[in-house]
């Protein structure tokens, strides 16, 4: 295991023992990254991102025993939980909207900001529908702001392969998003 993995293992054990300070330190270190990821996955919708963030952190605490530092970093584990929470959130939101539309008989348009909101929801839905590999490379590019060279080093691939993967991921996103 790497030094980071040993450190996260120590933090996990401390949290399982109920160490408040260890938890605060871990939370403070990971929250900004997770927040940026969740906000991106929600298409910039702040209210959705807040709901997802809250559910993700609560789930992480409840399932802390299942976190294995040898299998991946805490950040990756958190992002995995968040991705599932986003999918469930979008699914339940679609069901709720469909129910309301069925009751009122007309399409719901909340306020003047509706077009922006609709676009954000379409972005979130398109990201949720993408294969994990494409989502991961887009996240590295747009959320983590990594260069192609850094992505290639992280994935153990050539820069050309990463560029090709990015291109395919963008095309998949565009297809899932649809035309404006």
């Amino acid at each position, binding site marked *: 295991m790497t030094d980071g993995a040993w450190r996260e293992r120590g933090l996990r054990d401390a*949290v*399982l*023992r*109920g160490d*408040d300070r260890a*938890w*605060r330190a871990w*939370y*403070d270190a990971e*929250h900004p990254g997770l*927040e*940026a990821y969740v*906000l*991106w996955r929600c298409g*910039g919708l*702040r209210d959705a*991102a*807040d709901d997802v*963030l*809250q559910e993700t*952190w*609560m789930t*992480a*605490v*409840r399932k*802390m025993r299942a976190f294995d530092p040898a299998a991946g970093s805490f950040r990756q584990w958190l992002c995995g939980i968040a991705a599932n929470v986003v999918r469930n959130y979008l699914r339940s939101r679609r069901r709720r909207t469909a129910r309301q539309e069925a009751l009122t008989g007309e399409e719901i348009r909340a306020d003047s900001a509706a077009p922006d909101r609709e*676009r954000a929801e379409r*972005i979130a839905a398109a990201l949720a529908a993408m294969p994990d590999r494409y989502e991961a490379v*887009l996240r590295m*590019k*747009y*959320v983590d702001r990594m260069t192609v060279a850094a992505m290639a080093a992280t994935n153990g691939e050539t820069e050309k392969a990463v560029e090709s993967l990015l291109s395919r991921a*963008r095309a998949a*996103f*565009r297809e899932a*998003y649809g035309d*404006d």
Partner: protein
Amino acid sequence: MTDDDLLTPHEVPPPPGFREGLADRTARLVRTRARFRAAGRLVLPVVGFLAGLGVAWIQPTPGPRVEYVTVEVEVPIPVAVPPPSPPSPAELELRAEQLTVKAESARVYREAGDRYLHEWADHRAALRCYRNFLDMAGPGDLAAAREDTWLLTSLKNARESENPQ
């Protein structure tokens, strides 16, 4: 809009106090769960012990113990005694030779002849015994009889034709 426009995240600040509030809630959950785990570690052995006591209390008392005693009894095993085997035709012939009473010797010679003929199919030995029988037999035994074998009947007939009376 380009893909970059759509995919580039926009900075939207969280509501004031959201991050701190969430940190407090998760920290409370961390403490609560740790307390439950610690309590579980203490309570679990006690619950296990009490469950064991309960099972022992519910279980019915065992009835009187039955002791099995092994008694060895000697049972005589019947041994099959083979019946004495009858003397062979050769032994009969020898006995007939050794007998001094003629009538008895004749009877044994005949028996030996019958057995040579039927059991051993030894015609030559049977013929020898029958001849001795006829030599020693009384006049009553020289006539052909129903129980005579074909060889003895042939011999009797031949003697009768040789010595017609």
